[in-house]
Every structure is written in structure tokens, then in C-alpha cells.
């Protein structure tokens, strides 16, 4: 009487597997198309990053860091961080990781920015979307690996899909929030002078919202960096997989090196994108 009756059971796992298999077969062409498309981007970005001499990348961090923070010391520190990753012997792994982050963020923005704008313009869409976004943000990150693996197998490509979806909510939320909170009198001014909807959107709303939108882009980027590490679980090679190996083999030193490298990347990407956000915000709020 104390334990749950054993013969009471439902088995939906089998039917879900069946459904996904059927979907995968029926829409094989579409999945293959997506796969090819994403892989193409991934390879191009990775190819480009490998094509750059290492010191050019460091130079870019230095210059970018200076423009983002306006402080030489910070810029130098960022450069040293990336340099240290190289010294750890993780340069190539870092490039793999960066490529996945860049491509995922790119797709997130490609979907998230227009969606956020649509949400701001359409209250009904906003109501429905908000609950979905809430649900997305409460789910643990590795949950996103499941559908990615089901549809696209193992490797970098499903990693991009999972990362892209996981990192999507902040950019959507903040874009929508920023656009719907543009000063109402300023919008009235745009209308009163006879702007079309498109003119009001591109000449007033988006520029006025730019600072907050950039903050959303920054958050999305940071979530992508975090997710890429998780994605090593499905075989995406990069700094994350190094941590995973270290954990499995209890190699503390190796784990530390890889872990520090990830932290460095996170810091540099955070500061660079924050700098851009701040400068755009200054311009918009000025």
C-alpha cells in the first residue's frame, strides 16, 4: 500500500521518439537544409578566425577594448587575457568556441530583434510571447540540448541551434521593452510631423531604443558563452569540452586552465559589448 502501484504506467517516451523519428524522416529535406545553412556560416566564421594571424586578433581586442572602455589599462588587460588563453595552449579551442558563440548570437539577433519589434507593436503577440519567454528562461540550459540532438544529432551544428534558442529571450525581451518604452511625446512628435510607420520605427523608435537593445544583445551574448560550455556535452569541440574531459579524469589543473580561459572570454566579450551599449545609450539619451 505504501509504494506506487507498479502496473500503473503510461509510456510516452516511446511515442515521442517515434514522433521525432517520423518528423525527421518526413521533413528530412528541411532539416538538412537548416543544417547545411548553419554549417556554412559556422565554417565561414571559423575559417575567417583561423585566417586571421593571432596577433591581429589580439590587436582587435586591444583597439576594441579601448573604444569600449576608453581606458588603455582595461584594453591592455583584455588583450593579456586572450594572450594567456593562447599560452595555455587553447588558442584553437578558443576559436572553435568563439565561432559557435558568434554564429549563435548572429542567428539569435536575426530572429530576436525583429520579433522583439513585432512584440512591441502588437500587444496580443506580446501577451502570448511573454509566458513562453518566461518558461524558456526558467528551464535549465541543458534541456535545450534534447531537441537539438533529436533533430540534428551530435556536434557543433546542434550546439549552435541549442545556444541560439537558449540565448534568444533577453534580446527579444529587451528589444520589445525598449521599443514600447520610447517616450510617448517623442512618438507623438514623429506622428505629428507626418512620419509613416516605417519612418517612425527606423528614425525614431529604434535609435531611441538602441541603448537598451544593446543591453539585450550583451545579455544574449553572455548566455551564449555560458551555453557553449554546456554544449560540450553533445560533442561541440571547444573550451567546454576541455573542462568536461578534466572533470571526467579528475585533472584539476587542466580544468582550472580551461575554466579560467572561459572566464576570460566571458569578461572580454561582456565588456566589449557593454561598451558598445553604453556609447549607444549615451547617444540616444543625450
Amino acid at each position, binding site marked *: 500500500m505504501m509504494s506506487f502501484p507498479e502496473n500503473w504506467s503510461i509510456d510516452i517516451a516511446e511515442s515521442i521518439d517515434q514522433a521525432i523519428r517520423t518528423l525527421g524522416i518526413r521533413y528530412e529535406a528541411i532539416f538538412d537544409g537548416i543544417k547545411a545553412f548553419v554549417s556554412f556560416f559556422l565554417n565561414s566564421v571559423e575559417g575567417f578566425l583561423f585566417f586571421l594571424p593571432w596577433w591581429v586578433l589580439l590587436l582587435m581586442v586591444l583597439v576594441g577594448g579601448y573604444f569600449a572602455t576608453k581606458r588603455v589599462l582595461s584594453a591592455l588587460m583584455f588583450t593579456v587575457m586572450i594572450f594567456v588563453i593562447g599560452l595555455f595552449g587553447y588558442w584553437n579551442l578558443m576559436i572553435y568556441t568563439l565561432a559557435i558563440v558568434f554564429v549563435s548570437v548572429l542567428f539569435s539577433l536575426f530572429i530576436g530583434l525583429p520579433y522583439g519589434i513585432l512584440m512591441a507593436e502588437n500587444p496580443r503577440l506580446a501577451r502570448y510571447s511573454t509566458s513562453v519567454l518566461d518558461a524558456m528562461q526558467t528551464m535549465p540550459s541543458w534541456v535545450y540540448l534534447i531537441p537539438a540532438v533529436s533533430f540534428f544529432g551530435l556536434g557543433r551544428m546542434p550546439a549552435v541551434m541549442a545556444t541560439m534558442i537558449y540565448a534568444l529571450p533577453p534580446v527579444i525581451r529587451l528589444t520589445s521593452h525598449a521599443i514600447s518604452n520610447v*517616450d510617448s*511625446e*517623442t512618438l*507623438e512628435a514623429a506622428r*505629428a510631423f*507626418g512620419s509613416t510607420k516605417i519612418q517612425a520605427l527606423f*528614425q525614431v523608435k529604434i*535609435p531611441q531604443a538602441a541603448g537598451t537593445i544593446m543591453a539585450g544583445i550583451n545579455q544574449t551574448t553572455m548566455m551564449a558563452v555560458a551555453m557553449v560550455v554546456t554544449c560540450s556535452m553533445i560533442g561541440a569541440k571547444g573550451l567546454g569540452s576541455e573542462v568536461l574531459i578534466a572533470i571526467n579524469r579528475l585533472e584539476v589543473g587542466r580544468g582550472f586552465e580551461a575554466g579560467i580561459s572561459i572566464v576570460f572570454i566571458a569578461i572580454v566579450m561582456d565588456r566589449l559589448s557593454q561598451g558598445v551599449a553604453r556609447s549607444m545609450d549615451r547617444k540616444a539619451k*543625450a
Partner: protein
Amino acid sequence: MAVKISVQHVSKIFGSKPLKILQDLTAHFDKSLVMKETQHVVGVHDATFEVNEGEIFVIIGLSGSGKSTLIRCLNLLHRPTGGEILIDGQNICDFSPKKLRELRRHQIAMVFQNFALLSHKSVLENVSYGLTIRGEVKAASQFKARQMLLMVGLDGYENEPISALSGGMKQRVGLARALANDPEILLMDEAFSALDPIVRREMQFELLKLQQQLRKTIVFITHDIQEAFKIGDRVAIMKDSKIVQIGSPEEILTKPADEYVERFITGVDRTQILTVRSIMVVPSCLIQMRSGPNMAIQEMKRNGVSSAFVIDHDLKLSGLVTLQDALKAIAEKLSLAEIINREVIQVEPSTTVSDLVPLAAQSAYPIAVTEEGRLLGIVTKVAILSTLG
């Protein structure tokens, strides 16, 4: 004078079923009761007025009385729930979106309380915004924008960011932006209310100066009665979403429609608004030029005065005669024409009382009010004193 804007029974109700609420509304509705029972806000109810070409029409009322709602109906930022708005005789509520856009781009511009400038653009880009979006070429719109900046006294600030400007300068940009479109109608919603008093007075002066050259049709909103009376040719007073009185400042001061208006106008410096016309009286004693000094003396004695104005046959003012001079004339056998004081102080009927006060202080006699030389009336010192009180 041609009517530029004609507002006919315009109402604006905010809420989910505005039309139904409007139908059920009686003339003496209670705004807060409507709010409580139906969750609808009556923004404006049954507003009717006309604005003439080249006129400054001021709408005044306490905060929440519906001024902003009403002015936003004039360019359809708010679409009226009922009523018509005619501009140059055309009902703009029937306009297609495209035609409405053209109206806003060419005929009607707006200046906002909190400036509503585009903070991501420079001063020049802000001023040329209206021109840019209606598709004018960059060079032409920038040229025009520079002219406007010169006109509002901001030349040299073209490339400044908006954040570098003071409040008064920001509103000058707002004004320049509105004028750049060369609109016939200018809507100004509490345009000077966010400015501190000194800057505000400067801007009022500036507006009146610009208006002298430009002769736009201006609808100006304020909650400050001094401002309303200073710049308004006519003033509409709003209370609880309704217009309670429309008239010239002088009409409102002399004949307030109800207690509410009366309370509104207490504290107003009446001498700035009241003109001689409303305080002059018909002189009790007038002397014809052709009558002699003897008759003048008799006339003055009968009315119990010691001086009187002398007029000629077509009522033109000739001068002033005193009892003393008249007696002297009889003694020295002079005619009336030889003894009258021809240098009497004359003012026009539109002179304000405040301009009259220093003149009255210099003169020992009542002041003559004339129009093209014809005597219309006189102003006694007692009348002036009573307006000051």
C-alpha cells in the same frame, strides 16, 4: 477674417466602448462618476469653437481638464469620438491616411510641452526632421533648417547634440522644427510650461515677435492665465472636459461666465489686459467750438466741473477749456478758440490701462479717448484707480 479651423461638437472618450458612452452622456455629466461606473475617461465633451486665420487662440484650464486631448484632436493624434473638425472647410476626420499624412507634413505642425526632440540627432537634424521625412533633398532641408535656427536665435548651434542645450534653447529647437515645415497652423501644447519664469517670458515675447512676421494660425495651450491673456487674441476656458467660456481676454475679464472663470481670473494684473475702451465713459459735459466762453462757463457750472473738452462740428477733439481760462477770456474779450489748451493727452481705445497709468499721473485733467481725432469718451482717474484695486 477667414475661419481656418472649425471645431464642431468634438468629443473624445477614452475606453473600450467610447461611442456608446458618448451616446449616453448627458450635458451635465460627472466625469469621475462616469469613470467609476464605466471605466471610461471623458477627455473632451462637446467642444465647439472656431479659430480665425492669423489668430492666436489660447485654450486654458486646470491640469486634467482635457486641453491636451482637445489639441491632439486637431491633427488627429487623437481621433474624436464624435463631432467634426474642419480645416479650410474640409472635414479632416474623413481624410485617408495618405491625405492625413500630407496635412501633417505641410499644413499643421506641433510644439510639445517636454520638447519631444530626437535626442539621437543633432540640432540641425531635429529641425530638418519634418522636411526629411517628407522627402526633401538634404541640401534644401538643411538650408531651410539653418534659416529657422537663425530665426529663433540659435545660429551656431547646428551641430550641437540636444543634451547640450538648456530648456529654453530646446524649445527654440522645437519651435524651429515646427516652423521649418512652413505650416499654416501651429499647435502648441503647454509649449512654455516646462520653462522657468524668466525664460518663459522671453519665449512669449519671441513668439509674439515671430507671429508679427509670420501670421500663422496658432492654437496655444497653457494652464497659466497670465500667459493666456498675454498672447491670446481669444481664449477658451476649459473645465472638466468642457469649454465654459470663449472670448477675448478683455471680454473674459469684464464678463466672466461663471464662478469658476471668476476664480480663474483673480490675481490677473487687469491693467495689462483691460483697455481704455472698457473703462471710458461718455463725458457729461462737452462744449461745441462755435459756442462762446459764456456758454462754456454755463455748461461747466451746470455739470459741476471745472474743465471740459471742446469739440468741433464733426466731433473732432479741439482741446480743453478750464473754468479759469473761460473767465479770463470774458475779461479780455477773447474767443474760445484763442484760449483752449490744444495739447491735451489723447489715447486710442485699444491702449491698455497699464500704459495709461503714467499718462494719467502727469495730467491734471481726465484723459481723452479718440479715434482718428474723433472723441469717443474720457477716462477719469477714479476709473483707472478702480481697475488697480
